[in-house]
């Protein structure tokens, strides 16, 4: 977990598994992140997240609604991540990127006549159901600006992605725009300038056939119109590619005698 440690964050996992199940799992897979055993679901109930949909007769009774909290050093929740659909889940790297400013994994850097574009992904190895971020960092020279999505009469910045059957593409997150006053033409327009970040999340598909694919390649463009204090340039499109390796999820279970019944 070097990315967490670098950011000064502790990490822990809590499950309803008995200690011997967790010991077997972590030894087999070499996992050192603390995994806490809550076999009676005391902690899970204390947090109020016991999954009450599971019948008490089921061996699954006692599990939580899966979710993640970030907590400050005094024990107060600073953010939490729960998904409406149980098969979807943000990745640890997604949280680091979104909440703690971690850069992500570099994909490419492009210079145009107007800007420098650097693209990243929060994760380049994914499992079905993962929610991951595509990240585009833009750096503009002094006096250059791009138009924000609410602009009228100019080409707004847009992170466009081509449809891909292996992912669900969510909406784009832009930073807050600033308003530029153009008294000569009596206009006030929303713009981006300097350095800023645009993100777009995608959810990796959960269909069984996804596991047979080794790489998902997402293509798209970053489209914009740039202007400086003298010229408004023609619309420009920068081609982008984001690729993810899809990992196999088949990990053997613990021995039969350790399994919860």
């Amino acid at each position, binding site marked *: 977990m*070097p990315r967490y*440690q670098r*950011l*000064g*964050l*502790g*990490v822990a*996992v*809590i499950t*309803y*598994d008995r200690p011997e*199940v*967790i010991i077997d*799992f972590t030894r087999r*897979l*070499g996992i*050192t992140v*603390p*995994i*806490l055993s809550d076999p009676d679901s005391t*902690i899970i109930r*204390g*947090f*109020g*997240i016991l999954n*009450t*949909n599971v019948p008490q007769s089921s061996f*699954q009774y006692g*599990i*939580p*609604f*899966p*979710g*993640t909290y*970030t*907590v400050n*050093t005094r*024990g*107060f*929740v600073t*953010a*939490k991540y*729960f998904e409406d659909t149980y098969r979807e*889940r943000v*990745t*640890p*790297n997604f949280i680091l990127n979104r909440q*703690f400013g971690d850069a992500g994994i570099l994909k490419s850097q492009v210079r145009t006549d107007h800007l420098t574009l650097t693209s990243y992904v929060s994760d380049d*190895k994914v499992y079905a*159901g*993962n929610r991951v971020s595509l990240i585009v960092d833009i750096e503009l020279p002094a006096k250059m600006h791009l138009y924000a999505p609410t602009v009228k009469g100019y080409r707004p910045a847009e992170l466009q992605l081509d449809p891909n059957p292996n992912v669900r593409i969510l909406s784009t997150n832009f930073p807050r725009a600033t308003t530029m006053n153009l008294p000569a033409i009596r206009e006030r327009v929303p713009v981006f300038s300097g350095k800023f970040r645009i993100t777009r999340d995608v959810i990796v598909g*959960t269909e069984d056939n996804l*596991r047979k694919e080794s790489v998902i390649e997402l293509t798209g463009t970053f489209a914009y119109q740039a202007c400086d204090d003298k010229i408004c340039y023609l619309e420009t499109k920068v081609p982008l590619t984001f690729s993810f390796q899809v990992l196999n*999820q*088949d*990990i053997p279970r*613990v021995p039969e005698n*350790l*399994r*919860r019944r």
Partner: protein
Amino acid sequence: MIKHTWILIVLFVTGTSVFAWQGAQQFDPNANLKTGPGIGEKIPAFSAVDQTGKMRDFDSLKGPQGLVLFFNRSVDW
């Protein structure tokens, strides 16, 4: 090895294991979703044993910037 460990932890914290939900479930497992303490609220005190046999609580787990705490269904299914 560190990278390998990281990949594995990503797998099981996603809660999307192929062992999920034994048999055909007739209900939405995430219906009536409860998400516990809200932003700005204090988490309940807790302590439990980890895979090394140590008792762990919030103070022993947190870093200088706090703690990221995952609740997962199971490491086994």
